């Protein structure tokens, strides 16, 4: 396998990792706010803050990894996306900054105010919306290159049904992934009341997720036929995704094996995300940058792959340690430590 394929697969894995861990975090923010508004916060907010305290920085690093790696493996993307994403990118940075710092302020600092809960909830939905713009742009049709000067066609972006369907999909997926995870976590903590609530959320958000996925599929056929056709050719991958969705829903509906259910949720998104990505190939930005012509030189590609492997050897044991300490330590989960 060529190193540029290795590169894009690794990066896509990181983005997938970010999608999952960040969704849990973002959705939890929304649920915490919603629960407070509906006076149910005593049920779940303890649970949410116990999970999120040790992991928020790790979530952020997944994202940084993705974009730093992207620039390293595919430097042309820095130029094209950099030129065009100034406004959505800046908005996303500001939202991430507000969320991350206020999270730390409130958590390590003082007690929770309403303003904070609102920001925490709102940014949880706005960040995925802002970040999804990058994926929308990658489909082409929103960028113009005149004499080497690359510009974003803001009007096209704002009026495109595809663009809005992606935003919608991003938001409902976040809520769906998050609530399925929280159901697992509540179950593990033997917190029956919280479980009842987040289980309802998970069931509620599952259907909008499937509907938004279909809508996006259809909107894509209007926007980028080539990509759509590639995805149709990979129909079985999306079939697996829907299969995993059904199993997850069935388990959550039955009220058993929440851990397994969440694994199936992760598989559901894994297949959908990689099906989408595989259909996108070879373009990183249609039609300007491909993985082949946009890739870094071999020397750099090789160096990055080596650094990556060494880095993983360092990180995987450390991450394992962190998970053992917090996520899978039954006493910690139950709030005894």
């Amino acid at each position, binding site marked *: 396998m060529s190193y540029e394929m290795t590169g894009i697969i690794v990066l896509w894995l990181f983005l997938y990792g970010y999608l999952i861990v960040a969704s849990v975090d973002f959705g939890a923010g929304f649920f915490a706010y919603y629960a407070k508004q509906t006076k149910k916060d005593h049920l779940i907010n303890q649970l949410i803050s116990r999970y999120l305290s040790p992991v928020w920085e790790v979530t952020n690093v997944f994202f940084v990894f993705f*974009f730093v790696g992207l620039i390293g493996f595919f430097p042309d993307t820095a130029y094209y996306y950099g030129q065009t994403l100034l406004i959505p*990118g800046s908005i996303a940075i500001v939202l991430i900054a507000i969320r991350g*710092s206020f999270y730390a302020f409130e958590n390590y600092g003082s007690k929770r105010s309403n303003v904070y809960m609102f920001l925490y909830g709102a940014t949880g939905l706005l960040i995925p919306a802002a970040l999804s713009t990058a994926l929308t742009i990658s489909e082409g049709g929103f960028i113009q290159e005149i004499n080497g000067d690359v510009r974003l066609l803001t009007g096209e972006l704002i009026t495109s049904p595809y663009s809005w369907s992606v935003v919608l999909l991003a938001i409902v997926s976040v809520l769906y992934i998050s609530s399925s995870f929280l159901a697992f976590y509540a179950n593990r903590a033997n917190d029956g009341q919280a479980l009842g609530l987040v289980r309802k959320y998970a069931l509620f958000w599952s259907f909008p997720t499937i509907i938004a996925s279909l809508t996006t599929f259809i909107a894509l056929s209007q926007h980028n036929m080539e990509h759509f056709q590639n995805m149709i050719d990979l129909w079985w991958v999306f079939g697996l995704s829907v299969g995993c969705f059904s199993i997850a829903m069935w388990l959550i509906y039955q009220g058993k094996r929440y851990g397994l259910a969440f694994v199936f949720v992760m598989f559901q998104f894994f297949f959908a995300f990689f099906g989408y990505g595989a259909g996108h190939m070879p373009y990183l930005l249609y039609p300007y940058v491909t993985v082949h012509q946009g890739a870094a030189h071999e020397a750099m590609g090789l160096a990055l792959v080596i650094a990556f492997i060494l880095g993983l050897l360092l990180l995987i044991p450390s991450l394992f340690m962190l998970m053992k300490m917090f996520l899978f330590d039954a006493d910690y989960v139950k709030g005894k430590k």
Partner: protein
Amino acid sequence: MLADSVTMSRALTSLTLGFHIIFATIGVGVPLMISIAEFIGIKKGDPHYILLARRWTRGFVITVAIGVVTGTAIGLQLSLLWPSFMQIAGNVISLPLFMETFAFFFEAIFLGAYLYTWDRFSKPIYHWLLSIPVIIGSTMSAVFITTVNAFMNAPQGFELNGRTITSIDPIAAILNPAAPAKIFHVVSSAYLASAAILAAITAFNIIKKKSNPYYKKALKLSMSATLIFALLTAIAGDVSAKYLAEHQPEKLASYEWHFDTETGADLILFGTLNDQNEVENAIRLPKFLSFLSFGDFNSEVTGLEEFDEALLPPLWIHYLFDGMVILGMYALGISMLYLIFLRIRKWNEENKLLLWLIVLNGPLAMIAIEFGWILAEVGRQPWILRGYMKVAEAATTSPHVGWMFFLFLALYIALGVIGVSVLRKLFRNNPVELELEQRYPHIPKKDDFS
């Protein structure tokens, strides 16, 4: 709106870096101080030092949060504001950027573990061990990022023809000649500024409240560290000057207002320039520039006359250079003075004036860091990649940078104000005296030094 996109891109980058560097500096230096305090506490069985480590950590996580989010901001802004530069940088110098992320990841994982496990281990030394990867992670982050900045000053490891890059050697790019001096200077000054700030906070508390053994130990530890790191930073500064004299003489000559190439060159402190670019009202240290440049009072130092004027930085940076050096000397002097007072029994190391001078040293050390970075960045002008690409060629052509500048200005003001107020509340609601009482009711509260 406002100025052109190049100017606004520079303004926004300066803003983000100027704000981020405060927290990055604390992020590199404070973990080391925390670890030292905890280690002393464990070895001496002295709960004061353990409490010190605990309290420093509590404040530290707030600053880390701001450091993380502003670091994410600058990471993305590099591509958003300097897309053409990042296209080249991505090809040649992305390896250390990538490794920096790993180092930070490593640090974040262990910081999380360190933070939540104070009382979870049977042996306290195990908890202390968790601080080692935090120090390694934060310092290596600084090392990797600094190699990228060094690369901008002394690019190597590639060939550029038009916009095509060939013969890429990522390792040579990292091991560029500017890297060793820069890394040494950045790391030592970050340690220095962090120790100085912790000392300043302690001194301020002693002035405002009553002194007690806890504060005495905190001040002694942080001021001793200040002295050691100030010495290291002075050596690092000297190494940096020698690097510049050899590899970037135009930068050094601009710092020093050194116009004519000559042997036995004088070092110029402050002063003004008249219409003919002649130095007036300056303090001259005879032959010291030659000594600073090459370690020999009679060596020849290249002057500004030898360079194309269009490729030189603005000359006002001279004042920043003088300011930085003097503030560094101040940190060295004040820490020596404190330790002399501490040694001599009859002298009170906690006299008000001395304490105030120590308080002052905290913000001054951070100002010195800011001066140093402005100096390093403006001193490289007009290049973004010295000899290859100018700043003006690298910026985005997007017309909206001005708006983004104000967006981020508002963000940083909010983060700064709220961050400070959270920190104040955090420590005011839980004063040392109270926490000592609660955690360790049996240790003596009065001054027991004799």
